[in-house]
Protein backbone atom coordinates (compact mmCIF):
# COMPACT_ATOMS: atom_id res chain seq x y z
CA UNK A 1 0.00 0.00 0.00
CA UNK A 2 1.38 3.38 -0.98
CA UNK A 3 1.75 6.05 1.63
CA UNK A 4 -0.19 9.26 1.25
CA UNK A 5 3.03 11.09 0.43
CA UNK A 6 3.97 8.62 -2.28
CA UNK A 7 0.59 8.61 -3.92
CA UNK A 8 0.37 12.41 -4.02
CA UNK A 9 3.89 13.22 -5.12
CA UNK A 10 3.66 14.30 -8.76
CA UNK A 11 6.28 13.17 -11.24
CA UNK A 12 8.89 15.87 -11.67
CA UNK A 13 8.78 17.70 -14.98
CA UNK A 14 12.35 18.45 -16.11
CA UNK A 15 13.38 21.88 -17.34
CA UNK A 16 13.22 22.33 -21.09
CA UNK A 17 15.04 25.19 -22.86
CA UNK A 18 12.05 25.43 -25.20
CA UNK A 19 10.07 26.81 -22.28
CA UNK A 20 11.40 30.23 -23.25
CA UNK A 21 9.09 30.28 -26.26
CA UNK A 22 6.20 29.01 -24.15
CA UNK A 23 6.83 31.65 -21.49
CA UNK A 24 6.88 34.35 -24.19
CA UNK A 25 3.53 33.14 -25.44
CA UNK A 26 2.07 32.84 -21.93
CA UNK A 27 3.20 36.33 -20.91
CA UNK A 28 2.09 38.04 -24.12
CA UNK A 29 -1.35 36.45 -23.78
CA UNK A 30 -1.77 37.63 -20.21
CA UNK A 31 -0.80 41.22 -20.98
CA UNK A 32 -3.01 41.32 -24.05
CA UNK A 33 -6.07 39.86 -22.33
CA UNK A 34 -5.83 41.51 -18.93
CA UNK A 35 -4.27 44.86 -19.80
CA UNK A 36 -5.47 45.04 -23.38
CA UNK A 37 -1.97 45.84 -24.55
CA UNK A 38 0.03 44.03 -27.21
CA UNK A 39 3.64 43.99 -26.07
CA UNK A 40 6.61 43.25 -28.27
CA UNK A 41 9.51 40.99 -27.51
CA UNK A 42 12.93 42.48 -26.95
CA UNK A 43 14.91 39.85 -28.90
CA UNK A 44 18.31 40.70 -27.49
CA UNK A 45 18.22 42.58 -24.21
CA UNK A 46 21.68 43.82 -23.35
CA UNK A 47 21.28 44.44 -19.65
CA UNK A 48 20.23 42.38 -16.63
CA UNK A 49 16.68 42.77 -15.33
CA UNK A 50 16.14 46.05 -13.52
CA UNK A 51 13.20 48.00 -12.14
CA UNK A 52 11.76 49.14 -8.85
CA UNK A 53 8.84 46.70 -8.71
CA UNK A 54 9.26 42.93 -8.66
CA UNK A 55 6.36 40.51 -8.36
CA UNK A 56 7.10 36.90 -7.44
CA UNK A 57 5.03 33.73 -7.45
CA UNK A 58 6.42 30.48 -6.08
CA UNK A 59 5.81 27.15 -7.80
CA UNK A 60 5.81 23.76 -6.06
CA UNK A 61 5.07 20.20 -7.06
CA UNK A 62 6.08 18.67 -10.38
CA UNK A 63 7.93 21.91 -11.04
CA UNK A 64 9.60 23.80 -8.21
CA UNK A 65 10.74 27.34 -8.70
CA UNK A 66 9.55 30.87 -9.12
CA UNK A 67 8.15 33.20 -11.71
CA UNK A 68 8.96 36.89 -11.42
CA UNK A 69 7.96 40.03 -13.28
CA UNK A 70 10.16 43.09 -12.87
CA UNK A 71 9.65 46.58 -14.25
CA UNK A 72 9.87 50.23 -13.26
CA UNK A 73 7.30 51.71 -10.91
CA UNK A 74 6.13 53.93 -13.73
CA UNK A 75 5.46 50.93 -15.95
CA UNK A 76 3.72 49.08 -13.13
CA UNK A 77 1.46 52.06 -12.57
CA UNK A 78 0.64 52.31 -16.28
CA UNK A 79 -0.20 48.61 -16.39
CA UNK A 80 -2.44 48.97 -13.35
CA UNK A 81 -4.25 51.84 -15.03
CA UNK A 82 -4.82 49.68 -18.10
CA UNK A 83 -6.20 46.88 -15.95
CA UNK A 84 -8.18 48.84 -13.40
CA UNK A 85 -8.77 52.27 -14.83
CA UNK A 86 -7.13 55.61 -14.22
CA UNK A 87 -8.06 55.61 -10.54
CA UNK A 88 -5.27 53.10 -10.04
CA UNK A 89 -2.72 55.81 -10.81
CA UNK A 90 -3.42 57.57 -7.51
CA UNK A 91 -3.07 54.43 -5.43
CA UNK A 92 0.42 52.89 -5.22
CA UNK A 93 -1.05 49.73 -3.71
CA UNK A 94 -3.07 49.15 -6.86
CA UNK A 95 0.05 49.15 -9.02
CA UNK A 96 1.72 46.71 -6.66
CA UNK A 97 -1.25 44.37 -6.45
CA UNK A 98 -1.90 44.49 -10.19
CA UNK A 99 1.68 43.46 -10.91
CA UNK A 100 1.29 40.60 -8.45
CA UNK A 101 -1.85 39.41 -10.20
CA UNK A 102 -0.16 39.66 -13.59
CA UNK A 103 2.68 37.51 -12.29
CA UNK A 104 0.21 35.00 -10.87
CA UNK A 105 -1.56 34.77 -14.21
CA UNK A 106 1.66 34.48 -16.21
CA UNK A 107 2.82 31.61 -13.98
CA UNK A 108 -0.60 29.96 -14.21
CA UNK A 109 -0.85 30.43 -17.95
CA UNK A 110 2.66 29.07 -18.42
CA UNK A 111 2.07 25.90 -16.45
CA UNK A 112 -1.27 25.35 -18.16
CA UNK A 113 0.65 25.10 -21.43
CA UNK A 114 3.08 22.43 -20.20
CA UNK A 115 1.93 18.84 -20.37
CA UNK A 116 1.68 17.37 -16.91
CA UNK A 117 1.98 20.61 -15.00
CA UNK A 118 -1.53 22.05 -14.86
CA UNK A 119 -2.76 19.72 -12.14
CA UNK A 120 0.62 18.94 -10.62
CA UNK A 121 2.14 22.31 -9.86
CA UNK A 122 0.74 24.69 -7.25
CA UNK A 123 1.27 28.44 -7.17
CA UNK A 124 1.84 30.61 -4.14
CA UNK A 125 0.06 33.88 -3.58
CA UNK A 126 2.04 36.73 -5.17
CA UNK A 127 4.64 38.75 -3.28
CA UNK A 128 5.77 42.15 -4.53
CA UNK A 129 9.10 43.79 -3.69
CA UNK A 130 9.44 47.53 -3.97
CA UNK A 131 12.96 48.82 -4.59
CA UNK A 132 15.91 48.07 -6.83
CA UNK A 133 18.79 47.52 -4.48
CA UNK A 134 18.56 43.82 -3.85
CA UNK A 135 19.98 40.58 -5.15
CA UNK A 136 18.22 37.26 -5.35
CA UNK A 137 19.97 33.99 -4.71
CA UNK A 138 18.46 30.58 -5.18
CA UNK A 139 19.38 27.02 -4.30
CA UNK A 140 21.45 25.17 -6.88
CA UNK A 141 21.05 23.48 -9.25
CA UNK A 142 18.78 25.97 -10.87
CA UNK A 143 17.85 26.59 -14.46
CA UNK A 144 15.63 29.17 -16.01
CA UNK A 145 14.64 31.53 -18.73
CA UNK A 146 14.36 35.31 -18.83
CA UNK A 147 12.48 37.27 -21.43
CA UNK A 148 12.06 40.99 -21.93
CA UNK A 149 8.80 42.43 -23.18
CA UNK A 150 8.69 46.03 -24.31
CA UNK A 151 5.99 48.49 -23.30
CA UNK A 152 6.37 52.12 -24.32
CA UNK A 153 10.13 51.67 -24.69
CA UNK A 154 10.59 50.11 -21.25
CA UNK A 155 11.46 46.48 -20.59
CA UNK A 156 9.17 44.27 -18.56
CA UNK A 157 11.25 41.35 -17.41
CA UNK A 158 9.68 37.93 -16.95
CA UNK A 159 11.87 35.26 -15.38
CA UNK A 160 11.25 31.62 -14.59
CA UNK A 161 13.72 29.92 -12.26
CA UNK A 162 13.35 26.19 -11.68
CA UNK A 163 15.05 23.70 -9.39
CA UNK A 164 15.82 20.17 -10.45
Amino acid at each position, binding site marked *: MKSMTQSRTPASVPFDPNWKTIMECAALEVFEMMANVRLTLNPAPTEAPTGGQTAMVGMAGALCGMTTIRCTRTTATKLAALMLGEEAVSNPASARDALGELCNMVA*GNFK*AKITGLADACMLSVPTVIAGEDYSMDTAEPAEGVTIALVYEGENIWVTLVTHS
Partner: protein
Amino acid sequence: MKKLKVLIVDDSSVMRKIVERALRQAGLELTEVAEASNGAEALAEVAKGVPDMILSDINMPVMDGLEFLKNLATLESAKGVPVIMITTEGSEARVVEALSAGAKGYLRKPFSPEQVKERVAPLLGGGQ
Protein backbone atom coordinates in the same frame (compact mmCIF):
# COMPACT_ATOMS: atom_id res chain seq x y z
CA MET B 1 -31.18 44.49 -21.27
CA LYS B 2 -31.72 43.01 -17.83
CA LYS B 3 -29.95 44.81 -15.02
CA LEU B 4 -27.94 42.59 -12.77
CA LYS B 5 -26.79 42.27 -9.24
CA VAL B 6 -23.58 40.25 -9.14
CA LEU B 7 -21.44 38.94 -6.32
CA ILE B 8 -17.71 38.73 -7.00
CA VAL B 9 -15.71 36.52 -4.67
CA ASP B 10 -11.91 36.69 -4.70
CA ASP B 11 -9.28 37.20 -2.03
CA SER B 12 -7.57 39.74 -4.27
CA SER B 13 -9.24 43.16 -4.35
CA VAL B 14 -7.47 43.82 -7.65
CA MET B 15 -8.99 40.71 -9.20
CA ARG B 16 -12.45 41.71 -7.95
CA LYS B 17 -12.04 45.04 -9.72
CA ILE B 18 -10.73 43.34 -12.87
CA VAL B 19 -13.71 40.98 -12.96
CA GLU B 20 -16.18 43.84 -12.46
CA ARG B 21 -14.47 45.83 -15.20
CA ALA B 22 -14.56 42.83 -17.54
CA LEU B 23 -18.28 42.35 -16.90
CA ARG B 24 -18.95 46.00 -17.75
CA GLN B 25 -16.69 45.83 -20.81
CA ALA B 26 -18.63 42.75 -21.88
CA GLY B 27 -21.72 44.94 -22.01
CA LEU B 28 -23.49 43.75 -18.89
CA GLU B 29 -25.46 46.38 -17.03
CA LEU B 30 -24.71 46.00 -13.36
CA THR B 31 -26.99 47.67 -10.84
CA GLU B 32 -25.12 46.37 -7.84
CA VAL B 33 -21.78 44.70 -7.35
CA ALA B 34 -21.26 42.96 -4.03
CA GLU B 35 -17.79 41.76 -3.10
CA ALA B 36 -16.42 39.12 -0.77
CA SER B 37 -12.87 38.01 -0.12
CA ASN B 38 -13.65 34.38 0.71
CA GLY B 39 -16.47 31.87 0.73
CA ALA B 40 -17.61 32.66 4.25
CA GLU B 41 -17.98 36.36 3.44
CA ALA B 42 -19.76 35.41 0.24
CA LEU B 43 -22.34 33.36 2.15
CA ALA B 44 -22.94 36.38 4.38
CA GLU B 45 -23.45 38.54 1.30
CA VAL B 46 -25.94 36.06 -0.12
CA ALA B 47 -27.82 36.14 3.18
CA LYS B 48 -28.10 39.93 2.84
CA GLY B 49 -29.47 39.68 -0.66
CA VAL B 50 -29.47 36.98 -3.33
CA PRO B 51 -27.56 38.09 -6.44
CA ASP B 52 -28.45 37.27 -10.04
CA MET B 53 -25.04 35.73 -10.60
CA ILE B 54 -21.94 34.84 -8.63
CA LEU B 55 -18.38 34.77 -9.94
CA SER B 56 -16.00 33.09 -7.53
CA ASP B 57 -12.32 32.31 -7.32
CA ILE B 58 -11.47 28.74 -6.33
CA ASN B 59 -8.32 29.23 -4.25
CA MET B 60 -9.08 31.45 -1.27
CA PRO B 61 -8.26 31.45 2.43
CA VAL B 62 -10.83 30.80 5.19
CA MET B 63 -13.32 29.11 2.85
CA ASP B 64 -12.35 28.23 -0.71
CA GLY B 65 -14.58 28.35 -3.73
CA LEU B 66 -15.46 24.66 -3.69
CA GLU B 67 -16.53 24.75 -0.06
CA PHE B 68 -18.52 27.89 -0.80
CA LEU B 69 -20.34 26.09 -3.61
CA LYS B 70 -21.25 23.21 -1.35
CA ASN B 71 -22.60 25.57 1.32
CA LEU B 72 -24.45 27.64 -1.24
CA ALA B 73 -26.22 24.54 -2.52
CA THR B 74 -27.85 24.09 0.89
CA LEU B 75 -29.47 27.53 0.77
CA GLU B 76 -33.01 27.40 -0.55
CA SER B 77 -32.92 31.12 -1.30
CA ALA B 78 -29.93 30.74 -3.63
CA LYS B 79 -31.28 27.86 -5.68
CA GLY B 80 -30.93 28.61 -9.38
CA VAL B 81 -28.34 31.36 -8.95
CA PRO B 82 -25.66 30.63 -11.53
CA VAL B 83 -22.11 30.45 -10.24
CA ILE B 84 -19.08 30.79 -12.49
CA MET B 85 -15.77 29.73 -11.05
CA ILE B 86 -12.59 31.63 -11.83
CA THR B 87 -9.28 29.85 -11.73
CA THR B 88 -5.71 30.78 -12.49
CA GLU B 89 -4.14 27.43 -12.56
CA GLY B 90 -5.84 25.58 -15.38
CA SER B 91 -6.33 22.62 -13.10
CA GLU B 92 -8.80 20.32 -14.80
CA ALA B 93 -9.38 18.37 -11.62
CA ARG B 94 -10.52 21.41 -9.66
CA VAL B 95 -12.70 22.62 -12.49
CA VAL B 96 -14.39 19.23 -12.75
CA GLU B 97 -14.90 19.24 -8.99
CA ALA B 98 -16.46 22.70 -9.16
CA LEU B 99 -18.81 21.73 -11.97
CA SER B 100 -19.82 18.61 -10.05
CA ALA B 101 -20.55 20.77 -7.02
CA GLY B 102 -22.97 22.92 -8.96
CA ALA B 103 -20.96 25.57 -10.80
CA LYS B 104 -22.51 26.47 -14.15
CA GLY B 105 -19.25 27.33 -15.84
CA TYR B 106 -15.73 28.53 -15.35
CA LEU B 107 -13.33 31.20 -16.53
CA ARG B 108 -9.63 30.61 -16.64
CA LYS B 109 -7.41 33.60 -16.07
CA PRO B 110 -6.30 35.34 -18.20
CA PHE B 111 -9.64 36.16 -19.78
CA SER B 112 -10.86 38.78 -22.22
CA PRO B 113 -14.17 40.66 -21.94
CA GLU B 114 -15.34 38.63 -24.95
CA GLN B 115 -14.68 35.40 -23.10
CA VAL B 116 -16.51 36.73 -20.07
CA LYS B 117 -19.51 37.52 -22.22
CA GLU B 118 -19.42 34.09 -23.85
CA ARG B 119 -19.52 32.39 -20.48
CA VAL B 120 -21.92 34.71 -18.69
CA ALA B 121 -24.57 35.57 -21.27
CA PRO B 122 -25.99 32.05 -21.80
CA LEU B 123 -26.56 31.71 -18.07
CA LEU B 124 -28.59 34.85 -17.67
CA GLY B 125 -31.43 34.42 -20.14
CA GLY B 126 -33.73 37.35 -20.66
CA GLY B 127 -31.98 38.62 -23.76
CA GLN B 128 -28.50 39.22 -22.41
